[in-house]
């Protein structure tokens, strides 16, 4: 069955089983590999992307849910590689990734949080982002999200 939605600003019409998790559609049908598989049970957050601006764990959402909506993955977070999203800029500045595998999910979760709460405290971040990093980058993620908030405010002002 053909499911139509927008992904990173472009229209997609994959002809697939509507029950297929959005994660596999994005990765394998649309060949956008930034969104990762971690647990398959919406527990770890490696597969976080945005649907209509809201952060979702795509491993546990059927693609039919995205029909008619706008999906954004890390590939579509910034306008171009020369003009990075504040979260990506902050991630570079704070030297965040180690193995890097969970980072796309974290960055999408962070971008989702900042859209709602432009100036989150450590507590806000800990309460709203429950993604998992096995390398132990969490302290730098906290710093980077706060730095991203600053960058974002500077840019908007």
């Amino acid at each position, binding site marked *: 069955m053909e499911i139509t939605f927008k992904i990173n600003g472009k229209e997609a019409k994959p002809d*697939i089983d509507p029950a297929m998790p959005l994660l596999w559609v994005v990765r394998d049908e649309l060949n956008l590999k930034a969104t990762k598989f*971690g647990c398959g049970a919406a527990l770890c957050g490696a597969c976080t992307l945005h649907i209509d601006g809201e952060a979702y764990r795509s491993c546990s959402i059927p693609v039919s849910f995205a029909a008619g909506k706008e999906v954004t993955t*890390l*590939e579509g977070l910034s306008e171009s590689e020369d003009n990075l999203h504040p979260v990506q800029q902050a991630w570079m500045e704070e030297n965040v990734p180690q*193995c890097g595998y969970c980072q796309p999910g974290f960055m999408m979760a962070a971008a989702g949080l900042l859209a709602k709460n432009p100036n989150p405290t450590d507590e806000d971040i800990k309460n709203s982002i429950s993604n998992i990093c096995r390398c132990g980058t969490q302290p730098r993620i906290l710093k980077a999200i706060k730095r991203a908030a600053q960058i974002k405010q500077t840019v908007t002002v």
Partner: protein
Amino acid sequence: MATENTPTKKKFSRRKFLQRGAIVFGGTIVATIAAKGPIRRFVAQIAENTDTPLLISNLEPTFWFEIMPDNTIQYKSTKLEMRQGVFTGLAMLAAEELEIPLEQIKVVHANTANGVEDALGTGGSNSTLTLYKPIREVAATMREMLKAQAAKQWNVPITAIKVENGVMTSGNHKATYYEISTSTKEWKAPETPALKPTSAFKYVGKNVKRIDLQPKVMGKPIFGIDQSLPDMLYAVILQSPYIGGTLKSLKNSKEAAKISGVVQVIEIKDFVEKADLVAVVAKNRYAAEMGLQKLEAVWDIPKKWQQAEFEALTTVGVGTDVRIQSEGSPESILEESPDLVFKQEYRTPLATHAHMEPNGAVAQVEKDKATVFVGTQASTMFRGNIAKVIDMESEQINIETTFAGGSFGRRVDSKHAEKVARIAQIVGKPVHVFNTRQQEFQNAVYRPQTHHVLSAKISKEGNIEAITHNQATPDQILGMLPANLGYTLLGADFVSAGHGASILYNIEHKSATMWQNKLPVQTGIWRAVGMFPNTFAIESFMNELAHKTGKDPLKMRLDLLSGNEQINQRYKKVLETLAEKAAGTNPKSQESGAELPLVTTAKVLRQR
């Protein structure tokens, strides 16, 4: 290696490749001429102390530096970038001697087809340790070769040539590394040049950013699971959810094959070690998973294991014992005065690595060659193991190493790569296989649990006269060695699981003994290997001894490290630095005697 005995079968000529490239300073030839001696000596010195996970047939690291047309230098790393930043560290080291900014070095993974291999693999915290000097020697040699060539062309003495940012100048002459590198085919490697003193380092010892930030922050497809080939199929492998479970019967294969998108259900009896291989191959991952869910497997479960039974198997006094340290006669001293003996026991639990990217690989098998994309700590071993299951020579297998989404020691196990290669051979198309998270935990190669018994005789004056450490642990590497070598000859895994079991402190009578016993699950290496449980047990015991004798735990250790041996000196320095850094912090409880957390690695202490 097999290649050396059967030169006719060798598919690849390093020399030929070197000639084919623009100018590749393919580490092998240039570097071995220049740095073979030092590299060999350096590696040999440390080999005895490295807790390497592999059987080493060739300890010589090979290097591949290539000067690109844009005058960047490409370094093909034989070490896996699995988190630790080895790409960045190696680039920093090379940049020091190449006289180029860090950004001018691009590091990629070496594939095995180029002939750059490193049998040591990536593990045991050895990468920077073993390459710290050799990579600079090779880089310096390369720089000097380029300078010598420029000097020849410009007819000036080599000392008149200045290098900055990969550009050589002398008077009015100016040329990039790349320009000089393409100006001749006749190269002579000089004697290994003297290395820059550490005081002149521009990067080493400084806080620099990782060189792989960009692809990681942009979400580039750098991991094994991201690899995609034309016409690629996806497979999910049936794995036993029970310990020791073997497949008794399989139902619903036909129904699974009928699911939309499923291409084939593969069933191979006795694939390896009498275990069957069952996999659902489909056009997409979702269909493969649906197919797997449809299969009804009945498992033969020899025994339903309980935690307590595992612990009983891993207990001091059970299994094969191997004495790994023996000085004086600690046992008889302890026996003589039982009331002066202080004894404590410690346990560490079994654990799974739980890296974020599950184990898996992408394989393409053609008639006479195979390519496997996989984040592996041991590409040489993978190659050999994969070759066996698809009936090829290991030279026909090319391992394209990818970034790994965490590893922690888990990526030396080649089972998934062997299976995906066999599946790809059967279906005749590239195949993508990755564990589900459930499989990742249920079918893991576990970090062994350990049991430690430490006993010490404390004299009436409060001095430690004798100490014994007994460590019971399943192995981390014996299972990867041939049975007659591993379990029979070595007896216990003192190389890996027992690393750090010996007592470093100057106590006149001391011993360490390992008790080896197999568990019904596969155990394997885990970051820091035996150093982790052994340090935990020994240093906890030292803290308790200090508490018991009313001593300051730091001072007690420093007293026990008197002596002029380098290792003692280094250990003391570590402790003193720790005390200095900890000054002003407020330990939670002065009474507990546990305010001195330590992770010591005898290896590092011995070698730098």
